[in-house]
């Protein structure tokens, strides 16, 4: 194996470790800040670590319709999101170029959503099926936004390579980067939906469909799903930062990691604030909202093709 490949693999693994360590902390920040907005004391910042440890140590009850598929769904989901972690840049440029390109990244993110749908299907109850249905609808309407953002970057830099696209490529237009700025706006106001928090936590809405696809999970598998949700928050933030706010790197790897994570934290704070001040949308309302954004992003794509 060549030296380059080893460095790529090590870089990817470093990313996985960063995500695994940081994700519960970000969740902790989110919870604490939410509590503060709600005039509560809130749990300690490291509470999510305890929660995960507690769930991991609990009895695993397989009560759904099809336990093998439930098992498969949760491992698939966790594996997919961790592979995504290898591909996304944290501090330095995207580490694992050899594994795949931007298209693989998009497939893997979609796979994550499909794993949730499988989980809902495996649980087999009416509520989890509704949750699955909703997950599918939001996947179909939401995913194009991210695709368009990355494809616009790819058009500008004439490459699907991860390290080139995930480095502020959306602004690399020949002319004034109109398409990049439009996509910045679109992604900013749809970010809440990508990380599936209120008002877009529709597929899991506890007070409507009782956590939908997750309803039959318990113990370690529930812990993994919770971990995936937390990791999604970090990874989507990292993706957003890499695509749209790439500036401020020093060249010193550990420092750059911290800078990158600080930018991600700002995204998380924004997510928290929106989640604490909104009521949940209904599926049809959310779909109409996404559809409008898809329309706008297609216009941006057109502009990118003509060099803006």
């Amino acid at each position: 194996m060549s030296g380059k490949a080893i460095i790529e693999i090590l870089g990817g693994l470093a990313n996985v470790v960063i995500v695994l360590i940081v994700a519960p902390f970000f969740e902790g920040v989110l919870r604490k800040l939410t509590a503060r907005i709600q005039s509560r004391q809130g749990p300690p910042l490291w509470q999510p670590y305890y929660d995960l440890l507690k769930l991991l140590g609990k009895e695993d009850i397989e009560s759904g319709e099809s336990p093998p598929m439930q098992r498969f769904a949760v491992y698939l989901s966790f594996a997919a999101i961790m592979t995504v972690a290898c591909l996304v840049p944290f501090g330095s440029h995207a580490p694992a170029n050899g594994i795949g390109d931007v298209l693989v990244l998009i497939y893997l993110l979609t796979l994550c959503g499909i794993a949730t749908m499988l989980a809902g299907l495996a649980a087999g109850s009416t509520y989890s099926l509704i949750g699955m249905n909703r997950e599918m609808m939001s996947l179909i309407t939401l995913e194009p936004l991210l695709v368009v953002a990355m494809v616009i970057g790819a058009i500008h830099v004439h490459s699907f390579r991860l390290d080139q696209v995930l480095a502020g490529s959306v602004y690399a237009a020949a002319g004034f980067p109109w398409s990049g700025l439009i996509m910045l706006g679109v992604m900013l106001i749809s970010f809440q939906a990508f990380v599936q928090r209120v008002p877009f936590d529709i597929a899991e809405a506890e007070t409507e469909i009782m956590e939908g696809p997750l309803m039959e999970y318990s113990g370690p598998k529930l812990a993994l799903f919770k971990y995936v949700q937390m990791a999604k928050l970090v990874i989507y933030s990292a993706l957003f930062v890499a695509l749209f706010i790439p500036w401020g790197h020093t060249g010193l790897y550990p420092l750059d990691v911290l800078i990158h994570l600080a930018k991600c934290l700002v995204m998380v704070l924004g997510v928290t604030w929106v989640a604490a001040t909104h009521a949940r949308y209904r599926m049809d309302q959310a779909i109409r909202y996404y559809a409008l954004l898809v329309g706008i992003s297609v216009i941006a794509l057109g502009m990118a093709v003509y060099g803006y």
Partner: protein
Amino acid sequence: MPAHKIIERLKDQFGVAIQRADLPGNGRLFVFVDSAALKSICRFVFRDLDARYVTSIGSDDRPYSDSFLVAHHFAFDRTGLLCSLLTHLTGNPPKVDSISKEVPAANWAEREFRDLLGIEPVGHPYPKRLVLPDGWPEGKHPLRKDVAWNFVPEGYDEDREFAFDEPPEGCMVIPFGPFHPTLDEPAHFRLYVEGEMVRGCEYRGFMAHRGIEKLGESVLTYNEIPMAAERICGICGCVHNVAYAQAVEQAAAIKPPPRAEFIRTIMLELERLHSHLLWVGLACHIVGFDTLFMQSFRIREPLMWMAEKISGNRKTYALCLIGGVRWDFTAELKAELQQVLLKVEQEWRAVVEAVAGDRNLQKRTLGIGVTSPELVKNVGLIGPVARAAGVDIDCRRDHPYAAYDRVEFKVITGTGGDVWSRLLVRAQEVFESIRIIRQCLEKMPEGPLQLQLPDELPIGRMGMSSVEAPRGEAHHFVITGENNRPRRWRVRAPTYQNLQGIPAMIKDQQLADMTISLGSIDPCFSCTDRMEIVDIRSGKTTVYTQEELREMARRKVL
């Protein structure tokens, strides 16, 4: 329309079918009618005289008059009159013409006396079992006088399942309940869903029917019942406590001292305050807006502490006895209550201003769970649900009790009839409640708390009382009896009527709106009847049956 005018019109229309009319004064009218004409009289009162349906009551009167008794209660809200149409039934088995086709609101009440007393409502459009469990054998009726309060019939099958109706064609069935995160108590809705649209539903409730009425009629005494009545509801218990005491007082022609009336008014309004704040919190939680949920609970908490300071309890104030109240307000309590009200008012004003223009919250509540004034009339909807639909009814003003005739307040109404206007109505009622309490604190006269009562209350008298609970009108009916307890005590909680409006409210709207539509009537079901205990040391899980629990409760071990 004044009472004598109503009697006149009834006599004109029905002649000898009107057997007797009692007008015991202060806004009550009892009309005894011929059972054959009952149905047409009810239609006339409900449609032509435009009275509001309150409830229907069955009673086993055989030990006293050799007959069963059925009463349909109507309210003339504009003239402050509660009217009871009574008839004696001599047949065996007793039968009475059902009025549910003319008065749809009577649907449940008629099924209830069919279950509990075996009085058959002939021609009922949907004579399915309502209250009794499904394994209960036919022909046994627990509210009859020859049945003991702890009677369990032979062949009672505790585990028999409920037989559901066939869903309409092309619809999927989605079970909602008996346990669901947004249902605080067990109740089961079977929703018929087409895609994401709800096309209809079947309801099965009464899963924890506790037989409190039977207990009151056969075990407890006049002054013990208020404490049992308070436990009918965990949120608006004081309402039932006061309503029962007033019904007995009214039957026995007792008037409690003025200071007691003011204290009752203050506690009822304190209860409305905490209940409305609780509701706003829960409603916001249902639509995923947890920040307002937390904030309204924070604002509510000092009210609970205040209630504890006044009565010794956050809830269950144990306020009333017949002819008065059990405890007093000191000067310090008054001063502190003023302080708490001031703080709650300020904080709530800030919340209401923030919410009033909230487009995001409107998205989930505007035009959802709509009720029209026609539905309100037909199903007998009450309280904020009726007022939000523009129907201006409020027992505090229409049938004044306690000290409500001595304070000023506005009856808040809305126009939309949807969840949003119910939210606004409740939010504004908080300010009116604060106003009422302030006036009461100011005007409360000195004097005794409790009347000296004669040894025995008169026997065979009837009394009815309507109290405006936070959820709507709670109605109590009492026939006084021997052995220091009532012969018949009937409670109709507000949710009893409001729940019957749910099928119409959720029809043809999205499944996601079901929870908030149901939540918007502020439903109040009942308590649990079974529990699970986990031994932490051994990790062993034991599920106790109802039988074992009852046994343990008697031995007081756990």
